[in-house]
């Protein structure tokens, strides 16, 4: 477990500026937070689950504070699709007030960035909070936690810190100062990009290791079989 202070001191040593003659602690803390957030957002390294417990007549719910991106939304163990306001306006003009005991989909567009709308509006409370049965669950990718103080620790493993440091080095060396070195700055930026690409590739490799059957093509993911509008519904169709 590495604290922000220990990490920053290591960077200051690397920059040969342990007395903060060129780069202040505040500068480096800002670069560290930027690098940390960027690395976690680009790699999808942190993931979590949260129950958006159903409440009667409440469609819009707050997302977790560390929410970054939806992985899946489930209702009663079943994955439900993301719907767009355009789709829903054609499907159900009163979608914001329509109630039901079953949730068919969710919207994030046209809602506040930290909120999600269930469709239709739940007509009843879920039987038990924090349980999948007749309840909504969110699987999501997390954003990097804020490193608010020197005692804050990183949520990623130590091998990631080297990559985060590379972004900090890039920012520090490109800052207008006595220590500016644009060649090294570019080098450290390249190293960061390389590490992100490598991490993303590695995380995606598990799927590629699926054992193929001779003569059979791999199964390709496709939309789950939920009820959908007719293909040309509400769309302009070109006729010849």
């Amino acid at each position, binding site marked *: 477990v590495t604290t922000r202070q220990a990490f920053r001191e290591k960077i200051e040593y690397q920059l040969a500026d342990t007395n903060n003659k060129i780069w202040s602690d505040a500068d480096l803390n800002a670069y560290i937070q930027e690098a940390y957030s960027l690395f976690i957002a680009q790699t999808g390294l942190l993931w979590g689950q949260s129950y958006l417990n159903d409440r009667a007549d409440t469609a819009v719910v707050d997302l977790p504070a560390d929410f970054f991106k939806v992985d899946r939304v489930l209702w009663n163990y079943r994955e439900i699709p993301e719907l767009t306001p355009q789709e829903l306006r054609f499907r159900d003009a009163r979608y914001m007030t329509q109630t039901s005991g079953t949730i068919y989909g969710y919207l994030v567009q046209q809602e506040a960035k930290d909120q999600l709308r269930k469709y239709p509006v739940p007509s009843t409370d879920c039987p038990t909070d924090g349980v999948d049965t007749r309840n909504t669950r969110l699987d999501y990718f997390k954003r990097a936690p804020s490193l608010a103080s020197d005692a804050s620790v990183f949520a990623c493993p130590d091998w990631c810190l080297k990559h985060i440091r590379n972004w900090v080095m890039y920012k520090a060396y490109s800052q207008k100062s006595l220590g500016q070195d644009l060649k090294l700055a570019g080098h450290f930026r390249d190293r960061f990009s390389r590490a992100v690409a490598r991490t993303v590739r590695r995380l995606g490799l598990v*799927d590629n290791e699926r054992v193929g059957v001779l003569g059979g093509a791999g199964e390709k*993911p496709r939309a*789950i079989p939920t009820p959908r509008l007719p293909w040309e519904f509400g769309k302009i169709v070109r006729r010849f």
Partner: protein
Amino acid sequence: MNRASIRAEVRRRLGDNTAFWTDANINDSINEGLEEMAEASEYYETSETENLSASSPIYDLSSLLDNDILRVSSIWNTQKEQWMQPTGPHLLNRKYARWEAITGEPESYYFRGLWHLRFFPKVAASSGTFTVYYSAVPPLLALDTQSPGFPEEYHYGLVEYALYDLLSQDQETNEALLHWAEYLGYEAGLFRWVKDRGNRAGVMGDNSAGI
């Protein structure tokens, strides 16, 4: 080469007769190079057996495994004595809309993030085990007598990385980048060795080694 001889070689190439760089400085750079080479080549492979649990369908491998995991390559079901198949939620959705509610002996798995492992089906009772085969960051070289766990031919990659790291700290930019380029050569060599150290290249129709 052990850590002491790698460090001596770094010092010799730096022409550092006055011990401008401390042993601790150089050891840190060597270990960082080791971590970088491990991440790039995934040469350090190991396995661990863990218990199946009914309390949660998600296994957080960061708290279960002893090493800093890089990637899981395969998982063995010890009850069924068979390899589990990698899968994904989209594939499972096609077969069973409510697959998360199904219980049974695990047959397939998928990952979310770096550590979160999920089996399908999930177990109904906490009994049995599974074995995870994975690549990891190796333990760092803590003693002068310890050696990296890959062939000596590539140990010079650690020398080059340490030179790059130390010279970049000194803002000797051009020299540092020269050693970085040298290091990349060793890193690529180790990567190829990890993939091709068997005889796959000799199998008809397999030209993965580029021969």
